[in-house]
């Protein structure tokens, strides 16, 4: 009798340990999918929602996914959760907008979604009602999402590519699945569906998410696998620094991923085909914009970024060979110089240095010349920046977007 009880207890203990492991695994899935990144308002409780996403279709408030039964998802079953995450359909048939990246999460395995649910079940309920979406007509008609799904959404499990390594496939699973990199880095149509080749860059929320394929210069083709891993882990690399929305991604998601997964992501990204767009023209050194830009660079930028645009490790981003600088769109670059920016802080790189704002000091023409110079010096080749581009970003920053 005693031994039977002991055996029963052992089974129970093993079950508890397994559940514990599943919760830990689910927590890691939440990191991979960066759930907390969107489902937490600035200064708010984790997963309690309220962050407002700005999309071309209007503003979208991210819901509460804590276990609260009234304002969260405390009444959901695992099946409900699986359907929402992988098909974009909430209980009662309510259609989710693809601001929730379910077209990516569709590739997550059953086991990974199960553990994610096991983890979310342990998150303390928070009573926090999130305001309804503020989408423009006709995007505010949820049932239209059924048509969208019919047109664009392919419910497909992840299928390994057999002639690629296990590591490459793990990278593919993460990038196209939980990691949902394409949500920002792949260009979208007016209807929000993928428009261009995957991961070749796109503009969103006033930033340009750069190309992250194996392209030389513009992508990560010139980066070593180690460079990509370091970037995702610390926010820093010899080729650039995470800023804008990518700071949040690094801080909450990639810096917490394990090294094996980061390496797999790097291997996969470096093997992705480059955008087919032709290389941008270089601007001649004796172009008036370049000459003015050089003087402005010496007077404003040299102190930190150096005469050769090399920057300094972990403190001043390099400008020479910096992929963000040579994207077809100079949007991020203009924004950083106008508004300033703060680098991400991670455990490995806590400094969080700031680029100050120069909006008060440089006019549109000067800023355009300066950026033309930076985009076409020290081996960079990315075409001229126009005064109009600067004026547009300056106006949008004034408008608070």
């Amino acid at each position: 009798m005693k031994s039977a009880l002991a055996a029963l207890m052992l089974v129970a203990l093993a079950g508890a340990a397994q559940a514990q492991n599943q919760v830990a695994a689910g927590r890691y899935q939440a990191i991979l999918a960066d759930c907390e990144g969107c489902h937490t308002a600035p200064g708010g409780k984790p997963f309690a929602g309220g962050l407002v996403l700005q999309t071309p279709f209007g503003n979208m408030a991210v819901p509460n996914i804590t276990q609260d039964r009234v304002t969260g998802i405390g009444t959901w079953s695992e099946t409900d959760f699986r359907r929402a995450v992988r098909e974009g359909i909430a209980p009662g048939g309510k259609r989710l907008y693809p601001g929730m990246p379910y077209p990516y999460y569709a590739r997550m395995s059953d086991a990974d979604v199960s553990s994610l649910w096991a983890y979310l079940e342990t998150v303390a309920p928070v009573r926090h009602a999130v305001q309804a979406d503020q989408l423009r007509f006709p995007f505010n008609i949820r049932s239209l999402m059924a048509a969208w799904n019919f047109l664009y959404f392919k419910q497909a499990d992840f299928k390994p590519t057999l002639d690629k390594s296990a590591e490459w496939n793990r990278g593919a699973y993460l990038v196209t699945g939980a990691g949902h990199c394409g949500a920002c880095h792949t260009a979208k149509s007016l209807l929000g569906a993928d428009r261009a080749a995957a991961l070749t860059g796109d503009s969103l929320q006033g930033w340009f998410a750069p190309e992250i394929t194996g392209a030389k210069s513009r992508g990560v083709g010139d980066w070593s696998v180690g460079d990509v891993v370091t970037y995702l882990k610390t926010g820093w690399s010899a080729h650039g620094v995470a800023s804008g929305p990518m700071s949040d991604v690094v801080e909450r998601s990639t810096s917490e991923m394990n090294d094996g997964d980061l390496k797999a992501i790097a291997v996969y990204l470096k093997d992705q085909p480059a955008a087919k767009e032709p290389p941008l023209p270089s601007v001649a050194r004796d172009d008036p914009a370049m000459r003015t830009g050089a003087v402005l660079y010496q007077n404003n930028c040299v102190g930190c970024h150096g005469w050769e645009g090399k920057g300094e490790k972990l403190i001043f981003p390099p400008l020479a060979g910096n992929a963000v600088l040579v994207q077809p769109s100079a949007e991020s670059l203009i924004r950083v110089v106008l508004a300033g920016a703060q680098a991400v802080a991670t455990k490995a790189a806590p400094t969080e240095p700031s680029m100050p704002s120069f909006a008060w000091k440089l006019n549109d023409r000067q800023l355009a010349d300066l950026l033309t110079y930076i985009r076409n010096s020290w081996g960079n080749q990315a075409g001229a920046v126009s005064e109009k581009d600067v004026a547009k970003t300056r106006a949008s920053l004034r408008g608070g977007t």
Partner: protein
Amino acid sequence: MTKLLPRKDVVIMGLGWTGAIMAQELTDAGLDVVAIERGPWRDTGTDFNIGYMQDELRYSVRKELFLSPVLEAMTMRNSTDQTALPMRDYGSFLPGYGVGGAGVHWNGYVWRFFPTDFQLKTHLTQRYGARRVSELQLEDWGVSYDELEHCFDQFEYLCGTSGKAGNLKGQTIDGGNVFEGPRSREYPTPPLKMPYVSVLFAEAAKNMGLHPFPAPAANLSQPYVNPLGVAMGQCSYCGFCERFACANYSKAMPQTTVLPVLMKKRNFEARTECEVLKINLHPDGKTAKSVTYVDRAGQEYEQPGDIILLCGYGLMNVRMMLLSGIGKPYDPATGTGTVGRNYCYQTQGGGVRLIFEGKHFNPFIAAGALGSTIDDFNGDAFDHSNLDFVGGGGVSCGTSNGRPIGYHPTPEGTPRWGSKWKKAVAETYQNTMAFGAQGSSYPVRGNYLDLDPTYKDRFGRPLLRVTFDFPDNDLRMSNYISDQLAKLGRSMNPKELTVSHARKGWNSVPYQTTHNTGGATMGANPKTSAVNRYLQSWDVSNLFVLGASAFQQNAGKNPTGTVGALAYWTAEAIRDRYLKKPGALVQT
């Protein structure tokens, strides 16, 4: 109506160098820490913008980063038979304000005091006899250089200090400071590149048998990542250090070394624009209960804490003790009492200016602590047997700035304005070098701090009263160094040589130095010190008083290195001793 707040493990007044270091160390020890800072939040990207930080009018002339006398003034006098008057503007010294404190606007010299400085009374008495020091009120510090060595090392590595060791584990090294105490390892970064004036100075000094070395600087010679993982950049020699914050992340400040890590901690909180009014004691008077502070809106709060740390500027720490009735106020008539005792300054003077022809010194290629130094005339590095004083000064020659408003040297006899003045400035700007002593300041009975009987601040609290004049011993010391430096200057064959001499009658108006020390001194004897060797109040055992207020005398060096070392020393004592057994760490 005062709002009572929930208890914290540690309550810190002031978030400058010592507040930041103490908070970093004690949060690492697992304690829940709040820092209450009178001034505003300040950070590099938002407040020290590279595009306008070099605004000399705004920061140097109009002193934007400094404490305004509207918020807290002091009264000054030279002796007890005078009536002290409040200053309308800070002049002789400039206390910092806001997060980072004076650690924002300092030049960046990171010195270690000599081993003998910590046992000055014993050392000088043994070497020269009691009579020689009878006019001074010297005391030992109750702690030795050897005990502090690892703390100096910690502060230097936190800052990334650029320098060259002159004594590694007892081995003397040419090119470094051969008079310094033994250090356990080399500086974290190599010395800055020396400007031309420093090269000439060093050559002349060597020719006279002296020992020049590059001054240890917190303006970094190369990029650096400190032990907390915080990265700093290379100094660009812009010459906007003193009176300015560094916009290039290349001068060590709390913002560039500690705060990025500290501010992210869940067990740390900084409350800015909140001014501590007083420390409240438990009824027995032996432990502190809380601090009362007022926020920007005028709301008063009581913040209880198990440990209270005074981390303000030294003078403010002393005032807070006096306002809170902690310790016995010092009485110069009898030489008894401890709080306010042994206030010291820094004996400037001994300055030599040389004007040459045909040089291109380019003084605008500059950094706060950039230069070559000799310690041959400092402290007790030289034999005073046949001299009529004790003490000395470090002599530095470098370029700290060549700024357009503040720096326009002219030869003797030049008109103060007009075309002749302009012509002289144009000729002399590139041809002038200067060096002078950072002289020691030793305590005497009549120099002290107390509360002013008449003048009050905006909360109705008495202002601090500073009673000070340069002691005769220090003037004799300074004049001796003037003579030595004049010799050194003449050996360089300048076209014009001017020598300045320190004089009696301290004047609080022209800027001299912000190196105020003493008033809450550390020691082994509770009758002659306000805090014990761990900077713990003898009277209130859960109160620690950080900063230069602990110095028994000021050495011939800038104080920040020793201030930083003492902070690490105190943090270690709280972590390793006090937390295990709260109460007095030294029995009386």
